[in-house]
Each structure stands twice: as C-alpha cells, then as structure tokens.
C-alpha cells in the first residue's frame, strides 16, 4: 500500500502532458477585473503545473464557463457545506475512494511514517498571495504550537502514542512531517470532509498574530471586531469550517463574499483555483454559488417550486414524490442517490445505562441477538421505505471493499422461535399473564426507546417493531425528545435504548480509521461511558468491561500502528466480524435513497451517487467545480 500511495501521489501530477501555457483559458466574467489591472491574466493565476482534470476519461463532458447555481440552506451555519462540497484538499479521494494529490503536486509516504509534500510552483491563495511551505510552518509553529491558540498543544489527530511529528521545511515548496511510529490515518485526515488544517494563509493571518503585529494595532483590531483577546480574533478570522470571513484567503473553487448575519451568501469564483479541464479551461465552470437561508422545513417546498438549482440538504426520501411531480412544472431533474450510512435507522441498546438490571441484560449477547432476530425487516422496508432500502444489520455497504455478506446479514433474519429460545436461555424465561417476559428482578420487560424526534421514519419504524417484539414477549414505548436532551440522557445513562442512525461511514476502505467500531467517542450511543474514557485519555468515564468491547479497542489501537495495507485490512475484518456478530447496534435497513434535485441544464452530476458526509464529502468527490450549464437545452 505504501507503494500504491506513492505511485498515486506521483501519478496525479505526471499523468497528462503539459499543455502549452498559452492554451489555458480563464472565465470571461473576470475580464473586466483583468482590464482594470486588479487581476493578473490566466498565466499569472494558475500554478505552473495545474491539476488537469480529464473529464473525458471519467466519461464526463468538458464544459464552458458561466452561470449561477442557487442552493438553499437551513440556517446560516450551513455555509459550512461549501468547503465540504468544494472539496479542495492537499490530498483527496476520487469517486473510487483512492487518494490523489490535489492541492499538492505530489506526496510521498514512507512506511506511513515520513510524509513529504511537494507544492505546485506558483500556486496562489484566492487573495493572490503565494502558497508556500511558509504557510505550513505558520500553521505548525505559530498556530498549533502556540499555547494561547491551542491550549492543549497540537491537535490529537497529529499525535501517535501522544507524540507529535517532526516538521521540516525542506525548501520553499516542500515540507515533511515525520513520526517515530506509523500514522496511517494522516492522509485520510487531510482528505476528510473537515480536514486537519496544516496550512494556513500566513500572509493574511499574520496581522492577527502578536508575533508579527504590534500590540497597539492588535488592540485596535480586537476592539474593531469586538472580541476578548487576540486568540479569539485569530480564531474568528481564520475559521474555515464555517467560512464566515470574506477576507480569509482560500484554495477552494469559490470563496464567500458575504459577511454574516445575512439571509443570502454569495460565493464567487476563485480566480486562482488550481484545476483546469483537459481543454485548458480553468475550473470551476460555475461563476457563482448563491446560498439562500431558508427555514429547514420549507426547503423541500422551495426546491419543488424551482427555487434551487442543486439541492440535497434538507430534502429527504419522503419528499420524493412531491419533488418528482415538480419535474413537470419546472426545469428540474430529481435523482436518487444512495445514502452511505451503515444503517438508516438502528436501535441502540445502552450498554452503559444506569439501570443495573437492564445493563446486565443488554450486555448478554444472546439478548441483543434475540432482539435483532425479532425484527421483521422486510415489513419495515416495505411499509416505510417502499421496499427501496436494503434489509441488513448495521455494517458496511457493498460499495466498500471490506463488504462481506455475512457481516450485514449477521443475526438480521426474522426468526421468532430462535429469538424466543435465546431470550429463555438468557434468563428471561418467566412471563406474566400478558405473555410479557419478566426481568431477573421481577419487573416486566418494557423498554422505553428514546429518539431525538428529528425524522418521521423513526416513529413509523418503532410502531412496527412494537408488534414484532410483542411476539418475543417484550413491550416497547416511544419517547420523543430533542437532540441535545436525548444525547445528554444517553450519556447520563438514563436512556435504556435509543433509536439513531448506524455507522456514519458505511463505505470505508482499510485505510480509513475503524474508530467507529470501537468505543472511542462519548456520542456512541451503545457505550458512551467507555467512549468517553478513551476520548478523554482516561481521565473521565470508565474503561470497557465487556471482553468484546475491550478487544475492539485493542484492535483499533493496533490498526493505528499497522504498517501495511494487508495488516489494516485484516484488522478491519476482525473488527467487523466482532461488531456485527455481537450485534452492538441493531441495524434495520441501509442503502436508503436520498433525492437530489438539480436544474435540468446542469451537467456532470452523476445520476447515481453515494450520499454521505464521510468519506465522500457529500458532493465533494464528484467535484462540483466541474459542473456546468448547458445553455442550448432550455
């Protein structure tokens, strides 16, 4: 795998012959600014060696510049979708989830320990200032290692066994990070939807840093932006997750031009963007992205009345028929993409709940298996998802190279007899007059299932499961609350069972971290307390006391130091094997469908894509900078 990575990294830069520099074409919309002398012409804006995206090779059409894409967002904070969808990364995934150099000209990973990054000569930020290794040094020395900005020291993601990397500036365009032990997660971190920031626009940000700015001027800026101190100022001005600062230079295809608060955010083309198509046209094709803030509940209605040119956020499968009907009235096309979550809905027993009896019961694998066997997934799929989802436990999807049928089908059939037998064996054999099972302490086995109340699917599914589980002698009641309160109750151990989604990343490769399968986060509803213990580095929560959970955690740690792809793959398989056979989460259906509304004129958007945050970054891997309007087709 080391070899594969290295080769891919080099390949990206050398695959295509360099066109003559004169052959590059910028967008006509920038001509006025060039005439006024505000912008250099195209040769001064592109790196010497731009990333050539060969659309023909991807069976896509090369396009033309121009047009505005309108999108709707459910709140101001959702401008965070732009950097995710834009997906310009140092290294990034393609549709097959292979890593490629993107902003980098090439990268070299030695033993997953020593990473050498080579930048493109002449690559510039959207402000026109050059991107050099100084920007990496600034992020490393003046930001991550600055105790005011990062009180806890460098980010956890950069540490291997608690130790950070050694950083070197090899030359103006080359940087190197080296660890003593392998850090296989590093490149994946850089390619993630919200990447680890190891390069920052230093030329701009230095004005907010006391090392480079006079105290008086800094005090003036602090006052002007009404913040408390300089680290607040720096954080405010350098925030890329939500690109709220119009002055912050970026490497994305579009940059924000609107200062919040606002009902509409306009993202304009980055004249210095580093990608070109095979004809030498500088990307992105689209001149402007307009994000209109609307109430989340209105978005489907607005999208169905032609007010959005590209919409996935805040539209759900339940809006599909309405949206499809709108195709007749407006120049829209509605496609169905596949959601990448490991399970669209999953029941999650809280193995850390406060109730001693339920905790013991749930920690018995026979009970979890029985509960899973007791669900009639086919009926749920037919009734709630029109039979269009796929009946399976919470596992990886067939699109993942790690997929095995036995994982997703582990204990996912409907077998009432076996379920009853398992529950009898687990010590729940006694029943009351109504046929409900009794817990070891004599209480009736009634489960209150809590939900965050955000989707109507959940209540529909629970309604069906009520009947299924009565046949195995278990009664359920639903309690709808609100996301924050729901989460708080789960962590506090007050919730016995919750309903939520399955694995976030249902299409992993062995190179992606298997942390979701082990207790590593306090928002994992099946074992929040164990997760918190890992997350806090042992200062909070409790270590897992269930052998299988301990084993998952051990395997996860082993993955982090595994040196080869084969080792990582083997670890993934053993973890999936444990996770699915132990039924820690009871998945119901996966691969449910997600409508995507687009203007009929918009080209290069695949009809069937994968819809998910991690690893595909929503639209990111499909490269929205290559979308374009075909004007003749009205």
């Amino acid at each position: 795998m080391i070899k594969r990575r290295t080769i891919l990294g080099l390949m990206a830069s050398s695959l295509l012959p360099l066109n003559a520099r004169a052959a590059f074409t910028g967008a006509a919309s920038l001509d006025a600014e060039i005439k006024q002398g505000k912008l250099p012409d195209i040769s001064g804006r592109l790196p010497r060696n731009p990333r050539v995206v060969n659309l023909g090779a991807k069976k896509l059409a090369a396009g033309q510049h121009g047009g505005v894409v309108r999108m709707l967002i459910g709140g101001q904070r959702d401008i965070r979708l732009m950097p995710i969808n834009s997906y310009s990364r140092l290294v990034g995934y393609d549709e097959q989830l292979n890593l490629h150099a993107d902003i980098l000209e090439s990268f070299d990973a030695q033993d997953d320990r020593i990473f050498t990054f080579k930048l493109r000569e002449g690559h510039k930020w959207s402000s026109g200032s050059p991107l050099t290794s100084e920007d990496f040094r600034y992020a490393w020395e003046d930001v991550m290692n600055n105790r005011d900005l990062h009180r806890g020291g460098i980010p956890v993601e950069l540490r291997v066994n608690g130790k950070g990397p050694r950083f070197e500036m090899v030359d103006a365009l080359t940087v190197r990070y080296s660890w003593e032990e392998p850090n296989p997660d590093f490149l994946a971190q850089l390619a993630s939807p919200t990447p680890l920031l190891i390069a920052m626009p230093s030329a701009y940000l230095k004005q907010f840093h006391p090392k480079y700015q006079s105290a008086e001027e800094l005090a003036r800026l602090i006052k002007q932006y009404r913040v408390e101190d300089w680290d607040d100022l720096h954080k405010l001005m350098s925030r890329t997750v939500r690109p709220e600062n119009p002055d912050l230079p970026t490497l994305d295809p579009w940059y924000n031009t609107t200062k919040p608060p606002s009902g509409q955010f306009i993202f304009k083309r980055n004249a210095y963007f580093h990608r070109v198509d095979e004809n030498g046209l500088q990307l992105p094709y689209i001149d402007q992205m307009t994000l209109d803030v609307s109430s989340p509940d209105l978005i489907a209605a607005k999208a169905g009345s032609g007010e959005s040119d590209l919409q996935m956020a805040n539209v759900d499968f339940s809006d599909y028929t309405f949206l499809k009907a709108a195709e007749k009235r407006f120049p829209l096309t509605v496609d169905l993409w596949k959601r990448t979550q490991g399970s669209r809905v999953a029941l999650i027993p809280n193995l850390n709940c406060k109730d001693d009896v339920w905790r013991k019961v749930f920690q018995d694998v026979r009970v979890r298996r029985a509960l899973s066997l007791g669900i009639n997934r086919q009926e749920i799929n037919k009734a709630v998802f029109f039979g269009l989802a796929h009946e399976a436990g919470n596992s990886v999807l067939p699109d993942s190279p790690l997929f095995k049928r036995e994982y997703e089908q582990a204990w996912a059939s409907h077998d009432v007899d076996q379920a009853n037998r398992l529950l009898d064996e687990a010590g729940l054999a006694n029943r009351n007059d109504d046929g409900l099972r009794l817990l070891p302490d004599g209480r009736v086995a009634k489960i209150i299932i809590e939900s965050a109340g955000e989707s109507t699917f959940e209540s529909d599914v629970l309604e069906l499961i009520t009947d299924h589980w009565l046949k195995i002698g278990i009664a359920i009641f639903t309690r709808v609350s609100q996301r924050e309160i729901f989460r708080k109750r789960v962590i506090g151990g007050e919730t016995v069972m919750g309903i939520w989604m399955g694995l976030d990343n249902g299409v992993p490769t062995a190179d992606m971290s298997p942390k979701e399968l082990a207790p590593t986060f306090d928002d994992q509803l099946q074992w929040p307390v164990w997760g918190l213990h890992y997350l806090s580095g042992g200062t909070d929560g409790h270590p897992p006391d269930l052998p299988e959970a301990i084993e998952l955690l051990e395997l996860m740690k082993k993955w982090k130091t595994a040196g080869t792809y084969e080792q990582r793959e083997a670890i993934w398989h053993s973890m999936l094997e444990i996770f699915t056979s132990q039924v820690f989460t009871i998945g119901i259906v996966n691969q449910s469908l997600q409508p995507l509304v687009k203007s009929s004129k918009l080209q290069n958007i695949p009809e069937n894509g994968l819809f998910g945050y991690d690893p595909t970054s929503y639209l990111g891997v499909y490269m929205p900078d290559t979308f374009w309007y075909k004007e003749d087709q009205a």
Partner: protein
Amino acid sequence: MIRYILWRVTVMIPTLVMISMLVFTIINLPPGDYFESYVAEMRAIGETADMQEIDELRAKYGFDKPLPIRYLHWVGGMMVGDFGYSFEYRLPVSDVVGDRLWLTILVSVVTIIVTWLLAFPIGIYSATHQYSWGDYGLTLFGLIGLAVPNFVLALVLMYFANVWFGTSIGHLMDQRYLNQPMSWEKFKSILEHLWIPVIIIGTAGTAGMVRRLRANLLDELRKQYVMTARAKGLHPFKVLIKYPLRMSLNFFISDIGSILPQIISGAEITAVVLSLETTGPMLIKALQTQDMYLAGSFLMFLALLTVVGMLISDIALALFDPRIRLYGGRTR
C-alpha cells in the same frame, strides 16, 4: 395625574427586575448550555469539536461561575447597552438583530392597521345589525379566521400564492433582493409577499376585536342617552359615532399596551412557517439552541415593551375615562 404617572413608573422598576430574574432562570433551566448543544451539533455533522475549546469558551463567557454572578454580569451589560454575545452567530447580539427589527416592525404595523380597518366597520355593522344575516355571516367568517390555526392558513396561502401568482415560497421578498439596498423593485417584491402574513396574522386578531367591539357597543346602544339622542332627531350615524362608539372603546385603549410587544414579536409560529426575515424565528431558534444571551435579550426587550406599553395605555385610559384615574396612587 402626575402623581399617578410617577407611581406607575416607580412600580415598573421592581417589575422589570423580577422579570429579568425570571427570564434568566428560565433560560437556564434546560439541562446543559449552548456549548453542550454546540458539541452535539458538531458531532452530528461529523466535525470534531475540541473539548478544550469548549472549556475555554465556557470560562471566557463566565459559564463556569455560579448563577447569581452570571445574572449580575448579564444585567449589568444590558444597562450599558451590551446585550451580550450570540454564540450561534458568533456576533454581538445587537449585530445579529439588525435589519430584522425593521422588517418585523413593517409586518406588524401593516397587520395592526389592516386589523383595525377591517375590525371597526365589521364590529359596528354587527352591533347595529344584531342577529341579521350580515351579522351572522361576518361573525362566522371571523370565527373561522380565529379557529383555523395560523400555520395551516400559512401553508395554504403560500401554496396558492405560488401556484396562482408565482410568488416565491416564504420570506418577505424574492431571494435576489436580500441584502440589497431598498429599491422600487425590492419594495414591490416586499409588497407582493407582505399580504400573506398580514392576512394570516390579521384574521385572528380581527375576529377577536370584532367580537369585543360588538359586545361593548351593544351594551351602549341600549342605554337611554342613545334613545334620547335618537328621539330628538339626531342623525343615527352621528349618534353612533359621537357617543356609544366612544364609550365602547375602553378595551381598545387597553389593547394599545400589548401592541408594542406585538410589533416586535409578531406572530412567531407564522413567521417560522413562512420563513420570514423577522425576529420571531430568531427568538425561537435561540431558545432551542440555548443561545442564551440572544434569547434573554429578546425576552427582556419584549418585557420592557410590554411594561412601557401598559404604562402608555394606562395613561391614555386615565385621560380618556375620568373614572379610572382616581384609583392608583391616591387611594393608598
């Protein structure tokens, strides 16, 4: 009279203090704080929230201090015009509210005027033509307006406005005019959208007002001075306007008190459904995400307006109806 006003003003101060304590307690009641929901939100979208950053934010905004100190800090800030910091928007509260205030006032003022323009003639007609077909018809119409939930009406109107007139769904103007300076086109776009919330919020208010005006007026119409005036040959319309109508307006004047806060808060649910750029949806969102300074400042502002509005209507009533003025300070 002056003593009465002075007395009323002095009473306002402890009232506002009590309200501020209540508001502060209530917004602190739900478990957790903004930072907690912030982390939950970040996790839900897959972002990693740095626990350290959260702790720092907490300390910076004094969330690690006991409640009474935070309360004093908050109230003290408001005294000097600092309404605190909105965590959700990462901006000072005053910046966040900004333009929304003007649009809210526009919607509310137009709604109030429309309500009056509709309610007065209808109320008078209903009272003078009691038990006629017209009375029944208008009453039925008004009661339907009152009974149909505003949000249902909002959805229905929104749909038809879109299908029949091509008006964009929701909002107070077409999206392209957002953030643009006022122009004739923008103004037209606002007018095109404005009638929907005005009708929705107005119908409920109209029905209530019609019923109260009708009832009050009916009482007066049966009094002897009305009979006398009529018997002496005064034109019936003049009789009506000059005496009984004026006498039945007490309720209207006391309503003025609630108009001020109404102008700001508008009808929140309608505004949420229609996704209007008013302050209502912002207040609800702030309460949901526990953006406590934003929510708290809103609530305090509404409370202040209510108290001031009540003062105004009390003074107006006292001027208007001598029977009322005598109570208050003097009897005590």
